[in-house]
């Protein structure tokens, strides 16, 4: 999608000149990148939305301060950096799961066609499908031409 479409900048209330600079810079950058076609990214946007709205990530972000200062329920201490590495890997995993979920929802119901649609490798898809089944998001509906077929719940 292009991470350069999102900008973050700190401007204090007294820095009108800086605000003008930031807005000019951002506008020029977006102008250079051209129009954003939201229809072309509808699939990815839906998966990203489901990921960010999901409780797994929200829970992890919400617990970050507690876990990095007081430790987790097993009394293990986590430093900020390793906790952030975990969050990143969870984020990636949840996003991939939601891509698969979205693909099945759109009618790509077997591992091979999901692979064609989203480009994730076959073993990873199978692995994540098991996870999706366990959490009650998809179900195995039977075999079609000796291929397992799935449906969203």
């Amino acid at each position, binding site marked *: *999608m292009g991470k350069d*479409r*999102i*900008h*973050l*900048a*700190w*401007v*204090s*209330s*007294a*820095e*009108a*000149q*800086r*605000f*003008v600079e*930031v*807005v*000019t810079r*951002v*506008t020029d*950058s*977006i*102008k250079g*990148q*051209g*129009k*954003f076609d*939201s229809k072309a*990214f*509808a699939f990815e*946007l839906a998966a*990203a*939305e489901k990921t*960010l*709205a999901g409780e797994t990530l929200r829970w992890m972000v919400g617990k970050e301060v507690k876990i990095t200062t007081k430790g987790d329920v097993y009394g293990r201490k986590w430093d900020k950096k390793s906790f952030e590495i975990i969050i990143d890997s969870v984020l990636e995993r949840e996003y991939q799961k939601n891509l698969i979920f979205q693909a099945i929802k759109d009618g790509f119901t077997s591992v091979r066609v999901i692979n064609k649609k989203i480009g994730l490798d076959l073993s990873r898809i199978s692995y994540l499908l098991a996870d999706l089944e366990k959490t009650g998001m998809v179900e195995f509906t039977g075999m079609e031409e000796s291929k397992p077929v799935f449906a969203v719940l």
Partner: protein
Amino acid sequence: MGDFEPKIVAFLCNWCAYAGADLAGVSRLQYPPNIRTVRVMCSGRVDPLFILEAFKDGVDGVLVSG
């Protein structure tokens, strides 16, 4: 692409960037008219979902400023 005018949503913190934008207006500084401002009470109020929603609604860029 020469005359492409992007739509940019700007989430501005009431106390920082929004006041900065206000001051820019009062001081008559010129800046591009492409931003659509959403005033929030703190940039921490901006949920990542707001940004996705903006892109789904067809904006070309998002600026979060605090």
